[in-house]
């Protein structure tokens, strides 16, 4: 079998490693990172710098494209200066952007148009100014490649769960194939919108705050559960819970006796049900349990389908410990293995864009015209030809 063409372009100064800067800004996180990747092993990557700045909307509101783009424009230079400062500390004070960096990778899509465009303009200027090759990267591929690199999983089924995407992916014939995905909204978006109803803070992230509340939840209430083959749907469960929560909040944080009996019907004991007081924590707990059970179910089905025994969770929701715990239980029952990363790599960051970008660069990616770097809001994972894997 032939080796993938991973050394079509050699590193600058005949080094035994590549240096790549990754610029990410597809949603409310602006993340820039610098990585050092060994020539002889593309999974041997050292993170030199990983700086992120998050735009947080006020509680009860989501982040708007215009405000997010303005945030990114304001922070681009400051974040990159911090990356260069860290690079000089780790690689030596003679580190020079123009002379040392092999390529600049940036997110081409998918994501929100205005923030993507801000970072793209910055990436193009930086590339032209310093004459460094520019590599447009698919955001989802960035997550997958960074997950593979950090966990060293060989060929895992990938569950990609974030604020904008929910996909179950497996690699086959030079493409990351989507086996199942959400039919409407993403799981992260679902959690964020529930947090808005409860007016939970958006810092550090709405999902994290829901997770903390859910840890204190004791009683599981019944919610809709919508898995359709390999796909799932989450807008129904969200709307149901939104209505439920609004009536709960207006009724002084209480449910009527009748409603409570319906929500806890599975307990089959009216006296026990009447003695239970449902709290906000219980709502968060039940919401998480239902959503994550749906994700675990489609992941298990995908594993059976492709004959894999490894699962890799990537994306912002992937750092939720309860999701990791539920997935680990499923993997244990199947004699499988779970790979997950922490918030440094799960949440959007520049390092993952750099990792995917340097792989494309090594395989000889050449930007033919600058128009090819135009950002796109819809850029599916399976559109990318993965020539760096066998």
């Amino acid at each position, binding site marked *: 079998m032939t080796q993938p063409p991973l050394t079509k372009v050699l590193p600058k100064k005949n080094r035994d490693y590549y240096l790549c800067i990754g610029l990410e800004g597809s949603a409310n996180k602006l993340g820039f990172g610098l990585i050092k990747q060994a020539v002889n092993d593309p999974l041997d990557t050292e993170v030199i710098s990983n700086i992120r700045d998050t735009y947080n909307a006020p509680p009860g509101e989501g982040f708007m494209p215009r405000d997010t783009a*303005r945030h990114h*424009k304001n922070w*681009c*230079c400051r974040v*990159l*200066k911090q990356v260069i400062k860290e690079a000089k500390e780790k690689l030596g004070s003679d580190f*020079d*952007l*123009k002379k040392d960096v092999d390529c600049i990778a940036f997110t081409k899509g998918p994501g929100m148009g205005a923030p993507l*465009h*801000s970072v*793209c*303009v*910055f990436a*193009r*200027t*930086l590339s*032209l*100014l*310093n004459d460094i090759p520019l590599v447009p990267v698919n955001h989802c591929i960035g997550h997958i490649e960074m997950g593979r690199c950090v966990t060293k999983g060989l060929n895992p089924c990938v569950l990609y769960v974030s604020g904008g995407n929910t996909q179950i992916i497996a690699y086959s014939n030079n493409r990351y194939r989507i086996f199942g995905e959400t039919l409407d909204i993403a799981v992260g978006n679902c959690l964020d919108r529930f947090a808005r109803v409860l007016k939970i803070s958006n810092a550090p992230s709405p999902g994290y705050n829901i997770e903390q509340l859910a840890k204190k939840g004791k009683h599981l209430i019944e919610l809709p559960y919508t898995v359709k083959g390999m796909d799932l749907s989450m807008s129904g469960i969200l709307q149901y819970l939104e209505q439920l929560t609004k009536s709960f909040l207006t009724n002084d944080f209480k449910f009527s006796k009748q409603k409570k009996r319906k929500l806890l019907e599975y307990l089959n004991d009216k006296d026990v049900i009447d003695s239970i007081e449902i709290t906000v924590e219980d709502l968060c707990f039940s919401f998480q349990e239902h959503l994550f059970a749906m994700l675990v179910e489609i992941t298990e089905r995908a594993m059976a389908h492709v004959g894999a025994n490894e699962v890799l969770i990537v994306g912002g929701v992937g750092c939720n410990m309860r999701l990791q715990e539920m997935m680990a239980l499923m993997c244990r029952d199947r004699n499988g293995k779970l790979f997950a990363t922490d918030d440094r790599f799960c949440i959007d960051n520049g390092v993952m864009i750099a990792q995917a970008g340097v792989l494309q660069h090594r395989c000889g990616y050449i930007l033919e015209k*600058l*128009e090819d*770097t*135009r950002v796109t809001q819809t850029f599916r994972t399976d559109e990318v030809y993965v020539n760096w894997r066998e």
Partner: protein
Amino acid sequence: MASTDLYNNLPYKLKLNIPFENEKHIEYTLKSGVVTDELINIENNLKTDTALGDINKFVIEYHIINNNILSLNLHSIDIRLLRLISNNIMESIKLSIECIDEFAP
């Protein structure tokens, strides 16, 4: 449709002169998508769309004066659109200039 006809049909105009250090920097700013993206958009929309009607709502022409001034002429069908375009372009130019100032080799 000739490009000058296109300008004449658009009643609202704004001229911006932006000084740069040299012509190279103007080229980087233009190439970085400040104007080129909008121009590409216009080129794609030059034909009248049968479903949407006339969608040529704005035009940007630019030229370089004395090798260091970028002169932009914005033409728009209404004042609101003109404000929107000029704001977007100014913000993008600002980002490019900031990048050039900080990271020029």
